[in-house]
């Protein structure tokens, strides 16, 4: 039954991502522009990006009135990144100084395109400045022809050249990159893949837990009377429960791999992914185990666990990106087991090793299993 549901979910997700409408959206990178482009130099730069640059074939510029609008578009993956052009930057361009920079906002998942964008922006800057170099040389010639003092002329032109060289040298740092991320740097398809997968695996723990624990307290009493300690009992139930959950996780990820879903949305479903899934399953299994150990009565077990799962998933950004939640909820959500699992699995995409998160998750597992042992001691 579980496998059937997994197949149906995978098929639905694959169909959704394979739609023509979705594909057409992926044809070109959309770059948002926030701020005035009235400045002559900036207008020239935008024109170069749109028409004369190599990127014109894959890049589409979208003008936004304010940054909030652009940020919303980025979070909903309508654009790949956006640039904020401030008045200070326009003034700095006019003065040929590097006092202000462009701010480039992108998701972590768009890191690759971010680097290309930065190079392109630097190239545009070069394209603007090279004609300026010719202008400076022409200015020097005209000044000499007009009979200006040769020493003064060379000194003035030297200062102008120094300003030019200074600008050229720093053109690679013309912008700073700030990562916003729809949810910790994932693109929309990656975000939904990770969040739906985790939510599914969380719910799966509810399907199996009744086979292993809590239904019959007499069993625990009987085991204890036979000299089987609470720790042995809990581990004896936790390990097969974890094994079953890992098998389900392998089935689901195997389907995603076989159908090419992972490659399609840019998630590398390899050994690293499976290892992370195993750690996450250890966490989810421990959480389910503890909840079922604490709660009394099958109705309570199912209802309360389900409600806690929903609340935890919401706070951890499974249904909406965590970044749109209130700050306090974001803070809480990232430390919940569900939030840690999201960050850990999302790390496959963003390239985060997740070592710190994994340590925290393992501590959680120890707490959950240890808590279950303590509660089991009541029998």
């Amino acid at each position, binding site marked *: 039954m579980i496998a059937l549901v997994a197949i149906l979910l995978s098929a639905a997700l694959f169909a959704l991502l394979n739609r023509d409408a979705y594909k057409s959206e992926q044809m070109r990178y959309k770059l948002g522009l926030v701020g005035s482009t009235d400045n002559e130099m900036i207008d020239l730069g935008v024109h170069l990006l749109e028409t004369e640059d190599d990127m014109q074939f894959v890049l589409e510029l979208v003008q936004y009135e304010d940054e909030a609008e652009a940020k919303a578009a980025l979070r909903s993956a309508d654009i790949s990144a956006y640039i904020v052009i401030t008045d200070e930057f326009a003034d700095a361009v006019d003065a040929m100084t590097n006092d202000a920079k462009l701010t480039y906002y992108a998701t972590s998942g768009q890191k690759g395109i971010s680097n290309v964008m930065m190079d392109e922006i630097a190239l545009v800057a070069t394209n603007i400045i090279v004609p300026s170099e010719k202008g400076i040389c022409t200015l020097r010639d005209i000044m000499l022809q007009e009979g200006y003092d040769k020493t003064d002329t060379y000194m003035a032109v030297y200062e102008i050249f120094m300003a030019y060289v200074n600008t050229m040298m720093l053109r690679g740092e013309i912008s700073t990159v700030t990562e916003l991320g729809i949810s910790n740097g994932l693109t929309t398809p990656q975000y939904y893949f990770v969040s739906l997968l985790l939510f599914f695996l969380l719910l799966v723990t509810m399907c199996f837990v009744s*086979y292993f624990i809590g*239904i*019959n*307290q*007499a*069993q625990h*009493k*009987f*085991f*204890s*009377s*036979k*000299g089987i300690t609470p720790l042995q009992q809990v581990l004896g139930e936790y390990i097969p429960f974890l094994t079953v959950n890992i098998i389900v996780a392998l089935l689901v990820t195997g389907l995603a791999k076989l159908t090419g879903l992972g490659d399609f949305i840019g998630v590398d479903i390899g050994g690293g992914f499976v290892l992370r899934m195993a750690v996450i399953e250890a966490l989810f299994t421990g959480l389910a185990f503890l909840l079922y150990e604490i709660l009394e009565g099958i109705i309570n077990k199912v209802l309360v666990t389900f409600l806690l799962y929903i609340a935890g998933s919401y706070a951890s950004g499974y249904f909406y990106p965590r970044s749109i939640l209130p700050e306090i909820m974001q803070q809480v959500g990232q430390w919940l087991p569900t939030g840690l699992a999201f960050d850990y699995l999302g790390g496959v995409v963003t390239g985060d090793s997740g070592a710190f998160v994994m340590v925290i998750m393992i501590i959680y597992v120890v707490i959950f299993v240890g808590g279950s042992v303590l509660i089991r001691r009541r*029998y």
Partner: protein
Amino acid sequence: MTEIKNIHKSYGKKQVLAGVDFTVEPGEIVGILGANGSGKSTLLTILAGLQKCDAGFFNMEGKNLLKDTKLRNQLVAYLPQEMPLITELTAWDNLRMWYSADRLKRELDSGVLKLLGIDQFIKVPVHQMSGGMKKRLCLACAMNTSPKLMLLDEPTGSLDLVCKEKIYNYLERYKNEDGSVIIATHEVQEIELCDKCYILKDGRLVDCKYDGDIPHLIGRL
């Protein structure tokens, strides 16, 4: 001989057992009677090692089994009121948790499992069994260590007469093989099975000589 001496147990300020003393000879069945909440199950769970007492001794073969848990696990079998079975599994699978496959076959052919009639429903899942079948299966699980003392907490409650009779027959047989039994019970038939009876009242045991006068017995509880 099994010797239980001066067992004390309190839950907060409420004293449940206030110095319980009695002995059980080999081949003897001892009944513990008492009103609900009198502490019968508490006494049995202490003897089974499920909870600790505040003070007291439980001696068998010269050892205090409250401290020697390994020996207690060999010598003592405990059967709680509820069924300690995994309902999704068959009788065979439940028994395999406690018996090796070889021993299980032997016991089914001519041992304790044959006596309990387990061989008749060995492949039946627990959730399809009658109450009597389940109880006998529980007893079979408890007997895996060939214990010298059985602690039974209301073993035949809610069973029909035929099932009760099968279990009583087995207990008689166990008793005749020098096995000792302590039963916490409300059942008149189980009281009649006992060689000695005690009433647990106000945390202490009182001798009870049951002569078939039920109203008199009720009055003493």
